[in-house]
C-alpha cells in the first residue's frame, strides 16, 4: 500500500484576512497514499482544521497546490470541488453534524440521494454500512435518540457511503467518552484496513493518533515533527 498518492499538499499556505492577515497554514507539504492513515496533531488554533478544510475543497489555498488522486484541486470551480467531495472525500466532524430530522438510515443515505441515486438503492447501501458500524437495529432512530458514540458511527457510515478514497475526520472523538471514542476509532481503523480508505485524522489526543499509521504535528500553522506510530511500526 502507499504507492498511489491520494492526498498531497505542496507548500500550501493559507492566509485569512488579506495580506496582513493571519497565516493559519504556513508552507505545509505532506502526502498520504492509498490505504494510509495520518493523524494531524497540534494545539487549538494551530491550523489543523484549516488543513482539513483545504483538503476537502471547502477552502482554497492562498499559495501552493493540493492534489487529490494526482489532480490539482486548488483552482477547481465550486461545482468541481463539490463533485470531488461527492466521489472522493468523506468527512466526519467532532459535533457529528447529523441532520436532526433524519433517521440514521436517512442520514447515511443522504450523500447518495444528493447524487441522484434512487431512494431504494441508497437505502440498501446505507443499510449495509449501518451493519458494518454495528447500528443495524438503530436504522430508524433519530439522532436525538442515540448516544454520542452511535451518532458518530452513523456519521462515519455517512462519510463512506459513497465509497470515497479519502476520509477526513476532524476530532471525531472530541465529544465522546473514552469507551465510545475507542469504538469510533476502531471503526475508522477497520475501514482503513479492510477497505483501503485513506484516513486523515485531526486530533489533539495522542491515544487517538495512535490508531493512525503516522502522525504529523502542526504548530502555528507550520509543520512540526512527523513520526511513525507504534501501529505503523508493527
Amino acid at each position: 500500500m502507499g504507492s498511489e498518492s491520494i492526498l498531497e499538499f505542496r507548500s500550501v499556505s493559507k492566509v485569512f484576512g488579506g495580506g496582513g492577515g493571519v497565516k493559519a497554514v504556513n508552507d505545509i507539504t505532506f502526502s498520504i497514499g492509498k490505504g494510509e492513515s495520518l493523524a494531524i496533531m497540534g494545539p487549538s488554533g494551530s491550523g489543523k482544521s484549516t488543513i482539513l478544510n483545504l483538503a476537502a475543497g471547502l477552502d482554497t489555498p492562498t499559495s501552493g497546490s493540493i492534489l487529490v488522486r494526482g489532480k490539482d484541486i486548488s483552482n477547481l470551480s465550486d461545482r468541481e470541488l463539490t463533485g470531488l467531495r461527492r466521489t472522493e472525500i468523506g468527512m466526519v466532524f467532532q459535533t457529528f453534524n447529523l441532520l436532526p430530522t433524519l433517521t440514521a438510515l436517512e442520514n447515511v443515505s443522504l450523500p447518495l440521494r444528493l447524487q441522484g441515486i434512487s431512494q431504494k438503492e441508497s437505502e440498501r447501501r446505507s443499510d449495509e454500512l449501518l451493519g458494518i458500524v454495528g447500528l443495524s437495529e438503530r436504522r430508524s432512530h433519530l439522532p436525538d435518540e442515540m448516544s454520542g458514540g452511535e451518532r458518530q458511527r452513523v456519521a462515519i457510515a455517512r462519510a463512506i457511503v459513497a465509497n470515497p478514497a479519502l476520509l477526513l475526520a476532524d476530532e471525531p472523538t472530541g465529544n465522546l467518552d473514552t469507551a465510545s471514542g475507542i469504538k469510533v476509532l476502531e471503526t475508522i481503523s477497520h475501514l482503513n484496513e479492510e477497505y483501503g480508505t485513506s484516513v486523515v485524522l485531526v486530533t489533539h489526543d495522542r491515544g487517538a493518533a495512535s490508531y493512525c499509521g503516522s502522525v504529523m504535528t502542526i504548530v502555528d500553522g507550520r509543520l512540526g515533527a512527523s513520526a511513525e506510530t507504534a501501529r505503523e511500526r508493527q
Partner: protein
Amino acid sequence: MLGGLALVTRRQWKGHRLRTVLTVFGIAIGVATYFAVQASTFTIARAFEKTTEKIAGKAEIQIFAGESGFDEKYLDTVRDTPGVAIAEPALEMVGKTESGESLLIIGLDTTSDLELHSEIVPEQLVSIDDPLKFINESDSIAVSREFADRNRLAENSVLRLRTQSGTKEFTVRGFFKPVGVGELFGGNVAVMDIYSMQDVFGREGLIDRIDLKTDDSASVEETIGLLRQKLPAGIETSRPEQRGKAMATALAGVETGLGLMSFLALAISLFIVFNSFYVSVSQRWKEIGVLRALGVPRFGVQAMFLGEAALLGLFGSVIGVILGYFLAIGAIRVLSTVSAASYGLVTTADLPSLDPQNAVMAILIGIAASVFGALLPARRAALADPAAALRNIETRDRGKELNPLRIAAGVLSVSGGLAFTLFATPAVGTFVQVGYWMAILLGMVLLLPVFVYASAKMLRPLMNRVFGAEGMLAVDAMARAPKRTTATVGALMIGLSFVISNGALIDSQKAALSRSLDRSVNADYFVTNSDQIRSRTYHFSEDLADRVASVEGVARAENLRVTSLKYGGREVALLAHDMDGWLTRSPDALDRGDARAVRERMSAGEGFLVSENFALRFGVDLGDRITLESPGGNITREVLGVLEYYQSEVGTVFLDRKLYKQYWGDDTLDYILITAADGADRRALKAGIEKAVAGEQQVFVYSHEEYRNWVMGLIDQFFGLNYVQMVIAIMIGGLSLINTMVISVSERKRELSILRALGGFRSQVGKMIVLESIAISFVGILTGFVAGLLNAYCTLNISVVAVAGFRLPFRFPFALLLAAIPLVVAVAAISAWYPARKAAALNVAEGLVHE
C-alpha cells in the same frame, strides 16, 4: 441600563438589516391599509358634507323630497312658518354638452335678492347685460366663466344640452365666476331662472329644494320642528350637514368591508412582527444570557425587545401613513365608483383629506400592533435561563406547539364561532357577529401548529418522491420550526381566507342576482338612461317611452322608475313599476304571494311588494300593512308579495307607477323594459329603439344577456377592491415568507454547510430553500382554504344578512382559488429567491462551525 440596551439594539438592527427592513415594511403595509381605509372613508364623507354645505350656501335648513321634487305651493307654507326669515326655492338638473361634458344647472328665483344663494352667484362676480331679458326669455342661461371659456361661449351663444327632457337649446345671457358649489364641479355650473327652468324641463309647479334661514325669534331646531308638523311626512326638513352625513351612510356596507380588510392587514402585520422577534430572540439567545449575567433583570430584557418593537412600529407606521396616503387615492376612486354606480351619488372627492387625528391614530395602532406582536417572544427572552442561554441552549419545549389544551381551545373556538353563526339571529348586530367570525379565525390560528405538523407528515413522502432529498429536507425544515412556520402560514392563511370568503361572497351574490334576473328582471330588452344601476340626474320622459313602445316588433313596453325614500329612518329603494306588465311577464317573480293572484290588486294600487331583505330588516310579513311617506302624504297599503331582489342592501319597496305618480307627482322614468313580439327581428328591433331615441339624450339599450353581463360587470366593479385585497394579502404573505426564509437560512447555516460538505451543489441548497418556501405556501393555501370556507360560511350567513339582509345561496369560489394557488406558489418561489441565493453562497467552512 437603557443606554446599554439601546446600543445592543442598534447593533442588532445594523447586523440584521434585511430582517429589520422587512419587519418595518410588514408594519408599514398593515398601517398603510388601515390609514388608506380611514383616509378614504373620511374623505368621501367630508366630500359629501362639503357638497351639501356648498349647495346649501348660507341656508340653515333645507327642505327636500328626494329626486321627484315637490309642489311649489309648500314654499308659501314654509314662508308663513314662524321663525323663517328667508326661504328660497331651487331646482337642479344635469345636462350634457355635445362633447359629453356634464353641466349642473341650478334654477333660482332670480327675481328675489338671492341672499341665500349669493355664494353660488355673488353679485359682484355676476355679469348679466340685460337682466330683464334674462328673466323674460325662458331659454336664458348664465354659465360660469370657466365653462364658457372651455366651450367658447360668448354673449348670446347657443348652448345645446342633452337633458332628460330631450335636447334643449339655451342662449347664454350671463356669466359668473364660480364659487361655492361651482367649485365642486370644476366650474361646470349654470344658473337659470327657476320658473323658466320649470317650463323648459316640463317640471311646472315643482321644486327640488327650499333653502331657508331663520330669524332671531326661533332656534333652528324649533323651526325644523314646526316645519315638520306643517309639511307632509314625505317632505324632509333638516340641517344641510345632516344631508351630507345621510349620503355618506349609503356607503356603510362597503366601509364595513374595508374596515375588515384593514383589520386583517394589521393582523398579518402582527404575525410578521411575531415572526421577526421570535427569530431575533432565538438568534440572540447567547446575548440574552450575557445581558442577564451582567445584571440586566428579566423586565429589562423584555423591555429591550418591546422597546425595539415600539421603535420599529413607529418607523413602520410613519412609512405606512405615507404609503397609505397613496393607497387612499386608489381607494377613493373605488369608493367614488361604487357610490356613483350603486347609489347614484356623485362625489367630488379627489385627493385624500389628511386628518391629523387619523394619522396619529394609525401610528399609535401600528406601534401597538408591533408591541403586541413582540410580546410573546419578549416574554420568552425574559424567562430564559441565563446559564443555559450563555451556552446558547434554548430551553424551549418543542412539544408545546402541539399542546392538547391549545388544540382543545382551537377546536372550541372554531366550533363555537360556527355554532353562533348557525343559531344566532342577525338582531345581535354586526359587531357581535364579527366576534363569531373572529372566534373562527382565532381558533384556526390556535390550530395552525397542528395543521403545520399534519401537513408536514403528509407532504414529506410526497416531496421526497417528487423532489428527492431536497424536498424531504425542505419539509423537515418547515416542520422543525413550527412557531416560525406557523407565523408565516398564519399570515398567508388570514390573507387568503379573506380573499376566498370575499370571492365566495362575489360568486354567491352573482348566483343570486342571476337567479333574480331570470325570475323577475327578464325583459327581452332594457332601455336605460345611465351606464350605472341608478342615476339621480338623468331620467326619461313618458313621451320618449311612448315612442319606444311604438317601435315595430315591441309587444309590450313597461316603464320603471327607480328612486328611494326614507323608511324606518333608512333610505330604501322604491321601484315604481307597471305592475300589470311586469307580473304578467314574470309570473314566478314572488317568493311569497302569488303573482297571478295579486297582479290585479297591485295594478289597482291596492298594495306593495317588498324585497326579502326589506321584510327581514323591518320585520314585515305578507299581509302586514305598511306606510310610505310621500310628498303627497302618507300611503298605507297591504304587503301583497315578498320577493328576492338586490337593488338595495337596505330594502326595496315596489308599487304601481300610477300610484307613484299620484303621490310623488313625478312622471319620469329610468328604465323601459321591452318584451319583443313573437318572431320579431331582434337586431332590427334594437336598431329601431335606438333610432327612436337617437339624439334625444343618453340612452343605453341592452338585450337581456347584455344587461346580465352589464350587471355582473357592475358587481365586479363593486367588489373591485377584492382584487386589491388579494394582491395586498399575497404581497404581505410574500413579505412574511422572505422574512421567514432569510431567517431559516441564517438559523440553518450549519445544516446547509453540512449538505454542501456532503457533496450538495449550490443549486441543490438553493432548490431546498425554494421548496421550503413552497411547502410553507402550500400549508398557507390549505389552511387559507379551510379558514376561507369557514369565513365564507360565516360571511354569507351573518355579515351579509346583517349588513344587507340578503340570504345568498352558497357558492365556493373555485375559480378564484385555482387562480390563487399558482399565484401564491409563484410568490413563494420568488420570495425564496434571495434567501436561496444567500444559502447557496454560504461559506461552508465557516458554516460548519456556526453555533
